């Protein structure tokens, strides 16, 4: 699978995390941090289980460890930003399962743990940037704010316009709005990636001629 398609798969696997979560940047930062930690932990765990020859118990061990990590992270969020923990509720376990699905799909022990880890983290980094952009646009258009997680509260920067006066951008703050926006973003991503791949491949053709 090419890198472009892999990142597309990452986004598709994370739809459950991107769509139902409230469209605020602060929540995205919290969830994406967890997603990256889970990707790191699950990759290392897969390799550890493989080295210890515990393949029969792999799924159970992985599920329990990853969920335990999710529970621990939620406790930290409750301490640092209780508002976010309350709003996200059980959504905090969505990145956990997304990371497990991705790990299962791209599982390989051939190139060693370091290469596998680097490749996975690179893709999750790109996916995180895409998701942050998605949430930032929804935050700006939908709520006319930019939010960040702060100590015991959310840091809200109000933008100098009120979306509720016209209800123009409020649609993007809703779940159907986020689906429509995601569809447009995915179409744009495919279009741009295709153009880039044409540009990258162009000099090779010239040399061949």
């Amino acid at each position, binding site marked *: 699978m090419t890198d472009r398609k892999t990142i597309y798969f990452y986004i598709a696997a994370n*739809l459950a995390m991107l769509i139902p979560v409230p469209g605020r940047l602060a929540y995205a930062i919290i969830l994406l941090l967890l997603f990256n930690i889970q990707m790191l932990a699950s990759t290392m765990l897969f390799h550890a289980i493989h080295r210890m020859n515990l393949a029969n118990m792999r799924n159970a061990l992985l599920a329990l460890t990853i969920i335990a990590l999710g529970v621990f992270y939620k406790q930290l969020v409750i301490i640092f930003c209780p508002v976010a923990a309350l709003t996200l509720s059980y959504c905090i376990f969505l990145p956990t399962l997304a990371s497990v699905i991705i790990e299962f799909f791209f599982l390989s022990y051939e190139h060693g743990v370091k290469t596998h880890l680097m490749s996975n983290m690179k893709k999750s980094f790109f996916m995180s940037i895409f998701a942050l952009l998605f949430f930032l646009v929804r935050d700006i258009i939908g709520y006319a704010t930019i939010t960040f997680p702060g100590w015991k509260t959310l840091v809200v920067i109000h933008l100098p316009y009120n979306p509720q006066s016209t209800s123009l951008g409020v649609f993007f703050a809703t779940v159907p709005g986020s689906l429509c926006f995601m569809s447009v973003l*995915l*179409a744009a991503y495919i279009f741009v990636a295709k153009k880039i791949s044409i540009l990258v491949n162009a000099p090779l053709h010239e040399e061949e001629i």
Partner: protein
Amino acid sequence: MRPFTRRKSDMLSIVIYYLLSASAVLFYGIGLNKTLSHSNSFSTAFLTCVKSLFSACSSTAVAYLLMNWLLVPVGLTEIYPFFATLIFILFSTFTEIFIGIGVRQSPVDFSIPLLSVFLALNEGYSIGSAVLIASMCIISFYTMVLMFHSVKQRGSFYTVEGGLKTYCVLLLCLAFIMIAICGFNITWFNLYLDGGAK
């Protein structure tokens, strides 16, 4: 209203709420990616549905009881996902042994009932309601799978070269379905279930 009738009405509102207006797929995002890319045959999907229903309902019931007897008295309810996962793995293995013949369980099939169990334990106010929520989540997921299978079949006739990809079209369809269903939720459907406008 008599208690029994009230309970029946509560259960009916749970069924309608978690099946339609706050469907697991549309509102909570459970199995959203799988709905759009499900490619199993009808018989396989049916068998997976039965397996998921059995494992989700049984583990919800046991986890709810354990939560009430063990975790609530010592104030450790926040670690319920860990217990729920442990119990779910146990029941999932049993289900795999007894009715899992011929169907390989993928990690995605594993994640949907597990998330349904979390949701049910999070939002259920009694053991009955928790089990009902878990089963409604599974049923709503497979209803959506059926619906989107037909949408995909229909969409395959109109695929245009250089046009929008099927996945993007399916996302838009999902948004329209959600608007249609939520339209019911915010208008007269709730009033009817609550016994008319006050």
